[in-house]
């Protein structure tokens, strides 16, 4: 008796196009601007190039990926550690880079937060910081890896092996490349494997309360849970 063809399970479904894992290496360039108080920082943020804003918000997440709490961007950390402006540090720390698809918009938000804080606390503007803030920028280079995934199993296998720099590149840095509130992994799951639910779940993993290794584990767990239920 003939049996009806089985629908492919999520686990065995093949992608229309494979996912090629890349990684990113970066070099830090030292900029010309530095700030010795909050007023100078405000001016520097207004005037510096986009690469510098990117460095101190997005890129710093990779550099400090091992810290799961208390670190979101360099401006917040400096306001806290060097200026002892806890309220400002909190407000800056609350900026979530995932909400931004362009650096100018992110810059505008940072400037607005510092401006409004200094309006309320004018004395804080010129109070000397304990150490200067040096604006820097990163030169990024994409480094291909040998890891390729064509289905969930291969993807999970690769996720266990790639460096955290690859996870940063696809999961965080991708947002600016794509100009979307999304990441490379989710885009692939949605467009190449027709798994929009999984894509959405992955995109909700919090990069601020987890280290990048924890993000890796969360991605793997999310995929495995999805595959088990599908």
């Amino acid at each position, binding site marked *: 008796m003939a049996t009806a063809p089985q629908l492919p399970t999520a686990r065995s479904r093949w992608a229309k196009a494979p996912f090629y894992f890349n990684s990113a290496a970066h070099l*830090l360039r030292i900029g010309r601007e530095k700030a010795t108080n909050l007023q100078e920082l405000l001016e520097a943020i207004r005037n510096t190039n986009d690469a510098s804003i990117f460095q101190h918000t997005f890129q710093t997440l990779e550099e400090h990926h091992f810290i799961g709490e208390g670190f979101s961007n360099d401006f917040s950390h400096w306001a806290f550690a060097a200026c002892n402006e806890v309220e400002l540090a909190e407000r800056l720390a609350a900026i979530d880079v995932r909400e931004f698809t362009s650096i100018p918009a992110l810059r505008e938000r940072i400037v607005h937060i510092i401006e409004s804080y200094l309006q309320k606390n004018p004395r804080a503007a010129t109070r000397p910081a304990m150490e200067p803030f040096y604006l820097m920028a990163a030169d990024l280079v994409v480094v291909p890896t040998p890891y390729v995934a064509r289905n969930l199993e291969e993807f999970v296998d690769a996720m266990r092996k790639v460096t955290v720099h690859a996870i940063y590149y696809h999961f965080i840095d991708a947002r600016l490349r794509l100009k979307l509130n999304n990441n490379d992994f989710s885009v692939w799951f949605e467009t190449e494997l027709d798994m929009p639910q999984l894509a959405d779940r992955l995109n909700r993993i919090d990069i601020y309360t987890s280290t990048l290794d924890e993000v890796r584990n969360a991605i793997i767990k999310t995929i495995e849970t999805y595959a088990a239920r599908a």
Partner: protein
Amino acid sequence: MSDKDTKKSRGSKKQEPNNNNEVRRETAVIENEASETVVEEPVTAPPEEERPPGSKERRFRQTDLPAHFIERRKHPRIQTEPPPPPAPPRFDDYESIIGKPELDEIRFLARHLRGKTVKMVNSTAVGGGVAEILNRLVPLMNELEVPTKWEVITGGNDFFEVTKGFHNALHGGDYQLTKTIRDIFMSYNEQNRQRMEFPEDLFVIHDPQPVGLVRSRNENRGRWIWRCHIDLSNPHGDVWDFLKPMVEQYDAAIFSAPAFTRQLNVPQYLFYPSIDPLSEKNKELDESYINKVCDDFGIDRSRPILTQISRFDRLKDPVGVIESYKLVKKYVDCQLVLAGGGATDDPEGAVVLQEVMEAAGDDPDVIILNLPPWSALEINALQRASTVIIQKSLKEGFGLTVTEGLWKEKPVVAGAVGGIPTQIIHKLTGVLVHSVEGCAYQIRYLLTHPEFAAQLGKNGKAHATENFLITVNLKRWLLLFQLLLGMAKPAKEAMVGEATSF
């Protein structure tokens, strides 16, 4: 790199650098931050009567410490002969440290550079932090099939007197720059330039001594990089004005910290100094060896151990460390270990050691160790035995002893000076302090909150792994070479986030 520190190995006699992965004697780095490294050549231990104050017997007040601790504290078993040199690690050996994927990324970057040749030039083949770095880096590059040649400039005593003066002047010291001095500097640079050949694709010139070699630059080929290991934040104006036009002929300049830079019209990159996790100073040790070292020095592992490793130098504030310890001791029963060198052949070091001995008084729990230069393994063991590592410097270069502490997963309490704030993210990867009292308070807090201390240690090790290991440094070099040769282009500012691929 300090000329003072390396002068013993200099002179007009040519020294051969280590271009291959051959065994070289590893000299211990007592205070080994990159810009002020003191690497002393092994010397035979002097007879008892000639030993510096640190090795003379101390008098201790009455204590209930077991007799064997007291005996060892009075007469520590210090190794008097240098041990045989260890075999240098191979690139694959680092897999256990950073993992295969990371090694693969480095291999990938190196593969793209195959066929490109590199020349590294500095002013000494042995002694000094730069030589130590190159001793590790150059063989690794060659192993990765990026042919890298290390050459050392030669010069007479007059040249090295001048460069020593420049070194101090660039650190802000007073200096009289005369035409004669300029001529001496330039004539030796010119002699070396004539002697050397420059057929390579990339030239990395370390520190100011050989900076004038850039006059051999050919606009049509070759990229020139100036690697500055010293702090230029407050240089003597005349000396910097003399050197700056030469520096600006390079394609890029590299500094160890943002604070160490000057305004230049060439791109400046940040390369943190690094440690080798497989060196004698930093490799994993058996617990039995750590116990043996503690036993040799009379250290009681059943009570907290606070340790500062640094040469006996006022800028490291050893007396301030003792004052902090005394404040801690009121609340927590602990020991302080001050271990370092520099007191045997440095008159100022001997004076500071005497001050330290006086500050310690008859407290048997202040253990002062004036160690010979071949004590890398012992220092490693001391750091690993420590409950808290202190580096209460008043002025500092990058502060690689801090890196060593982070690498060993220890909570580090350190002065917020020089390159230390780059390494210690306050309360995340360690604790920054600004005073004796602050130092004491933070140590007390760490001793009474071991979970927090453990978390700092864990974060600190991750920070060191990510940023301050020789493998990271190797990767940075390979990346910079590709960028300068146009094999990979940096993301344009207007296209931030659109990283360049090969």
